């Protein structure tokens, strides 16, 4: 396979972001990667705006409760209402972040944030906590991994999700200590059960209040001696996080995971070692790590291009970037996330989304292949996602059934704005249109399929040909890859 300049840029934009925008497609063949890399990093430098969808009344209630202390106990009905509202607002947060991924020019930051969102997976229906954690992740997405780890570990979302509020002197809860080692830093096999027990003692007293602020509860902290990873001392939680960062294994673990996510699931150990060493020496500078990857020659090797199965979010966002559209019924995007197995803010568990081939089964693949047609022809989806009782909890049965029915039969109801996209083909001769569309949309050559797509496209005029071929090429397995 010849790796053209066009292909290299597409590869870069799909991996360091969510694929090319309709507006920039015409320049992909000519701009250099160095220039693109520079722009990607530059546009991600800005501090992100806090995404805030939470209703004022909910915040007021929470703050009020905080002032009153825990004396005022909410009754069951009030608590259910809060949970219900919180869940509704998580849907808004999901859509708001999705829009950022589509529209923000800080593509690298949002992509990196999506990576950390899976790495620091937290399932928590409290909207305020989730907003905070998302902000922590977006602010530090390209910053220092040390800071990111510290802030995440002290976030109310994580403290609650991993039960650290229940981690008390004499009654340690090991959940956070275990996951911080197994999933966030070292990885399995680089610590002992004894390390977890001792580290859990160091994290005793770490908690969060209702407003989502970190609190250190002195009375619950175990001030005794602990031995963690071969060192003994009167450690607190911060000390343990520092010790985990001092371990070179942490740099290896993260570099490897980043490599698998951004470069190739088949790991080249020499490259990872090189990346990990530099990452460690830079004091965990994420920006540097990503720059090392995207500015290397090997990143653009043929074997690293088109070898990744897009996650559902990458797929949906990518389509919206290529084909700017107005979606009347935004909620249908949540249904698609559920049908395809990736709902933002609802990772399957603390290990995040497994990714790769795990995205694909007969149902999910066929739904993926149908999506472009659903958008284009405004068909009804007519599929019902599975119940998620964590999301539905507390809803009364008739309400829930009605909602399920409604969700399942929704149309995407999108209007594609073709103008800008069509302009990319103004200079393409008629007979090359079908192939040209494939070239701009796919990073895996669809060898031998042009005739089929032509057969199933409307070639009565240029515009119809471009539009229908776009939909058909997007409905191929090749388009699932990046």
């Amino acid at each position, binding site marked *: 396979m010849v790796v053209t300049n066009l292909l290299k840029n597409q590869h870069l934009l799909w991996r360091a972001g969510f694929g090319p925008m309709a507006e920039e497609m015409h320049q992909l063949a000519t701009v250099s990667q160095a220039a693109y890399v520079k722009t990607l990093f530059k546009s991600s430098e800005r501090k992100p705006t806090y995404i805030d969808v939470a209703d004022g009344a909910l915040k007021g209630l929470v703050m009020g409760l905080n002032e009153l202390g825990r004396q005022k106990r909410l009754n069951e009905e009030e608590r259910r209402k809060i949970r219900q509202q919180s869940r509704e607002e998580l849907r808004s947060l999901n859509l708001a972040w999705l829009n950022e991924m589509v529209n923000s020019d800080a593509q690298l930051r949002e992509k990196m944030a999506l990576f950390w969102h899976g790495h620091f997976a937290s399932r928590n229906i409290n909207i305020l906590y989730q907003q905070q954690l998302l902000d922590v992740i977006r602010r530090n997405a390209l910053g220092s991994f040390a800071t990111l780890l510290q802030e995440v570990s002290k976030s109310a979302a994580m403290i609650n999700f991993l039960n650290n509020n229940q981690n008390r002197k004499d009654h340690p809860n090991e959940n956070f200590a275990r996951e911080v080692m197994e999933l966030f830093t070292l990885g399995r096999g680089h610590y002992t059960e004894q390390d977890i027990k001792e580290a859990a003692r160091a994290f005793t007293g770490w908690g969060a209040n209702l407003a989502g602020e970190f609190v250190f509860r002195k009375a619950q902290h175990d001030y005794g001696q602990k031995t963690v990873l071969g060192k003994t001392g009167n450690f607190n939680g911060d000390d343990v996080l520092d010790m985990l960062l001092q371990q070179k294994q942490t740099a290896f673990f993260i570099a490897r995971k980043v490599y698998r996510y951004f470069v190739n699931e088949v790991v080249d150990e020499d490259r990872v070692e090189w990346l990990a060493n530099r990452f460690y020496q830079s004091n965990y500078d994420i920006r540097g790590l990503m720059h090392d990857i995207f500015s290397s020659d090997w990143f653009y090797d043929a074997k690293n291009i088109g070898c990744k199965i897009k996650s559902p979010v990458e797929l949906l966002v990518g389509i919206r970037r290529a084909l700017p559209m107005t979606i009347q019924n935004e909620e249908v995007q949540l249904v698609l996330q559920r049908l395809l197995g990736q709902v933002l803010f609802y990772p399957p568990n603390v290990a995040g989304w497994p990714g790769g081939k795990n995205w694909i089964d007969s149902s999910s693949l066929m739904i993926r292949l*149908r999506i472009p047609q659903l958008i284009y022809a405004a068909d009804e989806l007519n599929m019902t996602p599975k119940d998620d009782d964590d999301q539905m909890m507390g809803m009364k049965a008739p309400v829930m059934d009605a909602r399920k029915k409604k969700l399942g039969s929704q149309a995407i109801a999108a209007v594609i704005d073709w103008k800008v996209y069509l302009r990319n083909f103004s200079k393409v001769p008629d007979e090359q249109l079908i192939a040209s569309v494939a070239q701009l949309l796919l990073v895996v050559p669809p060898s031998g399929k042009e005739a089929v797509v032509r057969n199933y496209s409307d070639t009565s005029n240029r515009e119809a040909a471009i539009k229908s071929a776009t939909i058909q090429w997007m409905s191929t397995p090749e388009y699932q890859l990046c």
Partner: protein
Amino acid sequence: MLIKRKEFLQIGSLATASLLVPKFLKAFEAPRRVPPGNKVLVILQLSGGNDGLNTVIPVTNDIYYKSRPKLGIAKEKSLLLTGEAGLNPALTTFKELYDDGSLGILNGVGYPNPDRSHFRSMDIWQSASESHEYIHTGWIGRYLDAQCAGCDKPTQALEIDDVLSLAMKGEAVKGLAMKDPRRLFNAANEKYFKAIARTHAAGDDEQPVDYLYKTMAETLSSADYIYKHSRQHPTSAVYPNTETGRSLKTIASLIFSDINTKVYYLSLGSFDTHVAQEGQQRRLFTEMNEAVKAFVKDLKANNRFQDVLLMTFSEFGRRVAQNASGGTDHGTANNMFFISGGLQRKGILNALPDLTDLQEGDLKHTVDFKNVYATVLHKWLQADDRKILGKQMQYLDFV
């Protein structure tokens, strides 16, 4: 008649002599028929955490009635099985099956360090992991991995749903989800998909794109395969017009055909009864009861009841005490039903939960659910349970 493993592999792989055709393209060729008489497993998932204590009621237990002054079901109202146990009044068919010797009830099923999150606990049940492990494959999926390496179709395990559950996903082989054989994937674009799939030429070393085309080709050919079989001997029996009724009707029609499906999976919910439990559980139980009634009658009429095992499970049970909203909150251990004409042991299989020995208000489990899986895999499906579950679990004696 039990199918031997060798036969199963032959049947399952639809082997053809043509070695030159890439394997997944063979999926388009005509399948060979499976001899009838083999064992079938139907798994009914009660999603949301069914309240086991109001399902199999300990009718002489004071603690039960004290903990549930409002929700407790009186002995006279329950369908008495023994002196100390009665069924929920909505489960009349289950009572008949009990009397008939076709029902087994296993109490106190759960796992160590129970998790009270729906999603997580369901993952644990479906993947057959320990509560601290994260496994990305399901137990039926790994059964497929073990039994049909090289199979062309994922139809050995079918889920009646639009979305495939984790339970059905193996490392190499995944089951197939479909709600209605007539419209497996609703694709207006079906002809295009078939044309494009046929055009694909896989290279020697499987690339990700080949994997996707393989899945696509298998799905398309499975759709035709299932549709054809669903019309071979469609049941003429009357089923209730509920989702569970329709699903079991579809399953029955496929069971009567010579399709190669060994495992069917379906779900009913939501049993997450934090509020107004009585009505909600009754509504769901009635749906289950009527559908199972029609299903068993149909199986019996077609002499297949001996070969079919239907089992129910839920991700957890509920707390012993009722809450303040006429409901119950997330709990731990729970009971499972086994329905078949081929049970080796029937009735109430072990002791009812001990309400004097609770852990923070919750039941302690007495049977690990993985023992049930091992039993079903080994004794019913003749599979290598040790390989599938990653360890040797104890066998039970209900089949």
